[in-house]
């Protein structure tokens, strides 16, 4: 992995990030609806609104606002929330942890689960196990996330009482340390399972496809011909190479997981940034909307960066197109 590549790759992050900012900003300001109402409430009078407008600089021309915004962001300031009177960065960071916990765990679970299932299916293509895995993963992939979520609440939470219905912690709980972690973990199970369901399916299918592909390669056949036991062949040769598309999938899937998070957070009342986005949109709290959008997009950029670097590490033979 050349230093040139790494540097080039890092440099490329900048225009991407800038582009994201501009798009987000333009969208918000092109949209109908006056941010003043979100800030001042629906019941003020004209004088009150202009007072508020002046206070928040809403009268500046768009270009000025954009420049100011970009300057601020680069300096770490995402603006101040209209409705909460606090810096947006603080608000988003506060809620980011919950979302990271949810998506991170879902990523790990889906990767591990997907790899395992894919392995299972590829070990004997078109066999019984393969068909079972393929069917199941297809079903999981196709069912809408909120559907799976609600059914799981009704069955596994309300029905059996095994899991809590919503939230990240038990209401009014004083637990700290290990007990608190256990409480959160208990609340985490259903949301993670639901979020990971779609991803497990995708990873399983991809692993399977990649493995089957690999298994058809010449060098694998050579190994077999030489008498190497099939399982070793599978693990050592094929899996490592087949890992590549899976790594690819992880990189691309961060965006998908994040999308699924919005829905899962809604269904399970999980206090993350997906929920924050929807609430802020309803209140026309523009700074928060921009802040969340920016943080999410930036995370995806970061994930891609990491993935690319790992990708080349895994298989240095790869050239780029």
């Amino acid at each position: 992995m050349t230093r040139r590549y790494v540097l080039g790759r890092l440099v490329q992050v900048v225009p991407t990030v800038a582009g994201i900012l501009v798009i987000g900003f333009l969208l918000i300001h092109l949209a109908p609806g006056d941010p003043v109402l979100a800030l001042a409430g629906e019941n003020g009078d004209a004088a009150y609104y202009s007072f508020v407008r002046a206070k928040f600089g809403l009268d500046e021309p768009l270009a000025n606002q954009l420049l100011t915004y970009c300057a601020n962001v680069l300096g770490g300031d995402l603006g101040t929330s209209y409705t909460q009177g606090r810096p947006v960065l603080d608000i988003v960071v506060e809620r980011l942890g919950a979302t990271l916990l949810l998506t991170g765990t879902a990523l790990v679970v889906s990767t591990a689960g997907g790899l395992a299932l894919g392995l299972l299916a590829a070990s004997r293509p078109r066999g019984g196990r393969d068909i079972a895995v393929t069917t199941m993963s297809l079903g999981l992939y196709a069912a809408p996330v909120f559907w799976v979520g609600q059914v799981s609440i009704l069955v596994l939470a309300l029905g059996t009482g095994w899991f809590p219905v919503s939230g990240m912690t038990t209401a009014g709980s004083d637990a700290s340390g290990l007990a608190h972690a256990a409480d959160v973990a208990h609340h985490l199970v259903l949301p993670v399972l639901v979020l990971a369901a779609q991803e497990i399916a995708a990873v399983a299918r991809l692993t399977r496809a990649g493995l089957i592909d690999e298994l058809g390669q010449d060098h694998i056949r050579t190994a077999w011909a030489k008498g190497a036991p099939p399982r070793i062949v599978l693990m050592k040769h094929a899996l490592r190479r087949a890992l590549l598309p899976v790594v690819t999938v992880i990189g691309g899937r961060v965006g998908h997981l994040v999308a699924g998070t919005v829905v899962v957070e809604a269904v399970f009342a999980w206090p993350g940034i997906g929920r924050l986005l929807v609430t802020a949109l309803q209140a026309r709290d523009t700074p928060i909307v921009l802040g969340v959008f920016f943080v999410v997009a930036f995370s995806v950029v970061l994930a891609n960066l990491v993935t690319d670097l790992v990708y080349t590490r895994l298989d240095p033979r790869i050239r780029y197109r």
Partner: protein
Amino acid sequence: MSTRDSIPASATAELAPARVGPVHDDGRRRVLARLVRTPLGAASVALTTVLCLVGLLAPALAPHDPFAIVGPSLDPPSLDHPMGTDGLGRDLFSGVVLGTRTSLTVAGGVGMLVLAIGGAVGLLAGYRGGWTDHVLMRLAELLQVLPRFFLAIVVIALFGPGLDRLVLVLGLTSWPILARVVRSEVLSLKEREFVDAARAGGAGPARIVMREILPNALPTAVVYVGLLLAQVLLVEASLGFLGLGDPNVASWGYLAGQAQRFLRVAWWLSVFPGLAIATAVVALNLLGDALTDALGRPGGGGGRGR
């Protein structure tokens, strides 16, 4: 080589479809034959065809106007209303049938946009190279990285619900991968002698595009678009759940969103739209798989066409 010098912002920003082999003139028929020979292929083709037919014939198939009050509120499935009625007393079956048509429209719209823009951009970038290529690929990367679902939420929540907005947002952000596929096809072709030969023979660029590039790129494109459309349907459903659906059009996502309030008292309201969505997604995915199998690989070894 020029292709190697350009470093993409991310080779992995999105799942790239497996490249599938070129289809030649008589090959098309062979592909179709191969497709329906496998049970999976046959099933997926049949399912997709049925869905398309239902969508096209929807106004004739739906017994009622999906927005009209035609029965008692929250009636379970019965002979009169095979999928039951909703809280206001509207026939769900009609809603699902007309929703099929909406899904078809949305999928069609996104598909066309993606094919058109992606194809054009890919061709342009591959053919011209240099600055054009550079700029276009940067743009493609930017759009690839944008979180589409978030973007759709932001757009719809700001500009109001509407399927046209959804189609635009998804169409305008999903073409990059297709552009890459087309571009790589163009690039690899550029290096082949017979293109020069053809050019020497007086063939104009349009002809080259039609005869060489398209047949090579199309299979991969089709597979990708198929998978993409499945995702589009799921996005529409999720938006409906979040209450961002279009209330003037019967769509599966909207029906699913409406069913929220009645989850405990009327299971049919969420089951049937959900089933419809899942069926369509399954059909599209299976079709994609089957097509991939039937179209074969672009030559042995490698398989690195990702």
